[in-house]
């Protein structure tokens, strides 16, 4: 045995030792992600939904699951030596001021390397501003204001579709309804809560209504969290629209549904969002919610085409005892996008992570949402594949009805009169 050989063996041995020690060190490593959500106050139910989704995602990444999701099999993030992800939550109470403060606190004190959240667009706005200043990536998967990705921030990315895309999808549906099913729609009425969220949705709907050639017969802004909405519904009845498009959070969604029924408003259909797909909506209004058509980025029946969705939903059911919903599904996806970026960047350094995020290309079969995948626009950082589908409530459950090719149930259209039910 020559000296060279001995040296080589020794070198290999030393390298193996170093690697082993290194990976042993890395295995203990924990990557901290910060999450901003309204966890107390009147949007607490929503915030807790979002939290459950992110928690389950982290459990799947960290644990060993037989699912077709990135990093489900095997524990932690492989290229970082199986590093685990930990989410540090912060409560915003839905106040933009707290969004800023908590983002800063999470980054500077809790040393998180990335942020997710924050449900309300106004809070995401200030939270992502703090992230931009402190140069930490913010991956948003639940705020829908188009302005968020119009700012051309370096560190802000959005996985979910924005209101512009979703408004276009709604009108594509109305057009499809005429073209493919011969159910012609001429007029729509817009009704929306007069907040940042509702006003943005309505602006986009106005724009696409014009583009697709629909007549907006009524444009009604109303104060959110009202105690009575009969005058709003009265205005809708007088306007006689073919379709009512409603943008509301949960409180108003419940109150409006009850008032629609009470005052017997029967358009050809209701196109709704947000509040109508909150996990509390159906348990509260029960059968009165039937035949509402809701824009969504998730439905449990996606499991028919993607069995993985069913497995995730089962895990969720087992863990929390309630069915998985839209908000949960949105917040569920962000940790995977970040984990994928960490893995490819082989680091949690923010520059490297941003570079990796820009190169993100997660195929559609590895996410629970019905999109072709996740890929960010190089300038706006909006996921170019994100879009909305439409689900309809039938038998007190959400079923995919549009795009028609992907439908799991046939769309019930026009909306059946209230008195003919049951």
């Amino acid at each position, binding site marked *: 045995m020559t000296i060279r050989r001995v040296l080589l063996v020794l070198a290999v041995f030393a390298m193996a030792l170093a690697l082993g020690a290194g990976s042993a060190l890395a295995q203990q490593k924990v990557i901290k992600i910060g999450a901003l959500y309204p966890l107390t106050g009147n949007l607490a139910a929503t915030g807790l939904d979002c939290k459950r989704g992110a928690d389950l995602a982290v459990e799947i990444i960290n644990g060993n699951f037989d699912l077709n999701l990135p990093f489900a099999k095997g524990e932690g993030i492989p290229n970082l030596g199986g590093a685990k992800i930990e989410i540090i939550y912060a*409560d915003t109470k839905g106040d*933009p001021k707290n969004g800023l403060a908590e983002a800063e606190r999470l980054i500077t004190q809790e040393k998180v390397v990335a942020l997710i959240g924050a449900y309300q667009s106004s809070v995401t706005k200030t939270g992502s501003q703090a992230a931009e200043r402190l140069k930490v990536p913010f991956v948003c998967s639940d705020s829908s204001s188009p302005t968020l990705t119009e700012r051309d921030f370096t560190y802000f990315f959005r996985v979910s579709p924005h209101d512009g895309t979703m408004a276009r999808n709604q009108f594509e549906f109305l057009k499809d309804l005429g073209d493919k099913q011969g159910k012609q729609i001429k007029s729509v009425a817009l009704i929306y809560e007069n907040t940042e969220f509702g006003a943005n949705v309505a602006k986009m709907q106005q724009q696409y209504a014009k583009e697709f050639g629909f007549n907006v017969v009524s444009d009604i802004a109303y104060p959110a969290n009202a105690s009575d909405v009969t005058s709003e519904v009265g205005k809708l009845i007088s306007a006689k629209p073919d379709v009512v498009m409603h943008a509301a959070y949960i409180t108003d969604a419940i109150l409006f549904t009850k008032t629609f029924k009470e005052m017997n408003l029967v358009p050809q259909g209701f196109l709704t969002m947000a509040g109508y797909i909150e996990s509390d909506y159906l348990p509260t209004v029960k059968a009165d919610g039937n035949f509402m058509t809701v824009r969504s980025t998730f439905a449990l029946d996606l499991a028919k085409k993607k069995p993985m969705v069913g497995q995730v939903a089962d895990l969720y059911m087992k863990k929390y005892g309630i069915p998985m919903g839209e908000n949960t599904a949105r917040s569920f996806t962000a940790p995977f996008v970040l984990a994928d970026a960490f893995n490819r960047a082989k680091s949690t350094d923010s520059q490297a992570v941003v570079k990796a995020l820009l190169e993100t290309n997660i195929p559609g079969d590895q996410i629970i949402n019905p999109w072709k995948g996740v890929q960010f626009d190089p300038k706006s950082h909006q996921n170019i594949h994100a879009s909305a589908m439409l689900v309809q409530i039938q038998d007190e459950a959400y079923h995919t009805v549009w795009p028609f090719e992907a439908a799991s149930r046939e769309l019930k259209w026009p909306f059946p009169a209230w008195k003919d039910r049951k």
Partner: protein
Amino acid sequence: MFDISGKQITVGGIVLALLILFPLVVTSPFGQHVAIITFMFAMCGVAWNLMGGYAGMFSFGQVAFFGIGAYASSFLLVTFNVSPWIGLMVGGVISAMLAASIGYPCSNLRGHYFAIATIAFAEIIRIVFNNWKLVGAAEGITVPMLKESVGNFMFHSSKLPYYYIILAFLLIAVAVCYWVSSSKMGYYFRAIKESHDIAHVLGVDVVRYRLYSIMISAFLTSMAGTFYAQYILYIDPESVMIMPISVQIVLVAMLGGANTVLGPVIGAAILIPLSEYSRAWLGYKGTGVDMIVYGTLITIISMYQPNGVWGSITYLLRRGK
């Protein structure tokens, strides 16, 4: 005119020095943020005190002036590229004028009727801004990120300038309040508070002095609003014009001790760190325990210190003499 003893100057000087040194010791952005928000509400509380504490007009509509201050500077900056410092003055003047125009017809309202009138006024202002397309309606105004400088009233790399600016604002407010309370105007205010009619009989021009106090209060509150907009860089009616902010301002003044110059400052120093830190420590659990603690504490404080913390301290000091 000012009746300040040497001891008070020494104590004041030490406190001021400590406040100036504070952010150099507490370097975490969150700690500094809490201090900044504390000063902001302290300033609003001091301004409220001029109306509520001294002149006895309980306003629950201070948020209207706060919001107008925030909107005036942001709107002028975004639309006409006017410096926020000029916007600050414009906002202050508009607020003061609006305060006068609402204060005049309300000058014969007493007690709770006045309080509810201020709520009504603030809600009307909020609804108008929520529908006013020119100022962004419900979408609000995003203040563009400009180069950081004192002239631009914007700083990205550090919170220190924000800290010192709001500290200076607070000192201005305290100085104004001190000056008013020890001047002839202050005695008129107290006379009006004790009894409208007697003050009137004694020859105090009740309406005029009520208007003065409302206008000064509105101007100072508006300054705090401009500061908020430049600090947070995003405003909408839901974040700068809602009633909980008015209530917060009243709470700050009340818990500290209305009718004393420094009461609201003490009140803010208790209340704001309490709510910020309890949220940071307990809020993430999503159980609302932080709010339960908050609600319990303000109940207990006002049960056992009905004159406010500072009010009770000064009372004890005076009795001890």
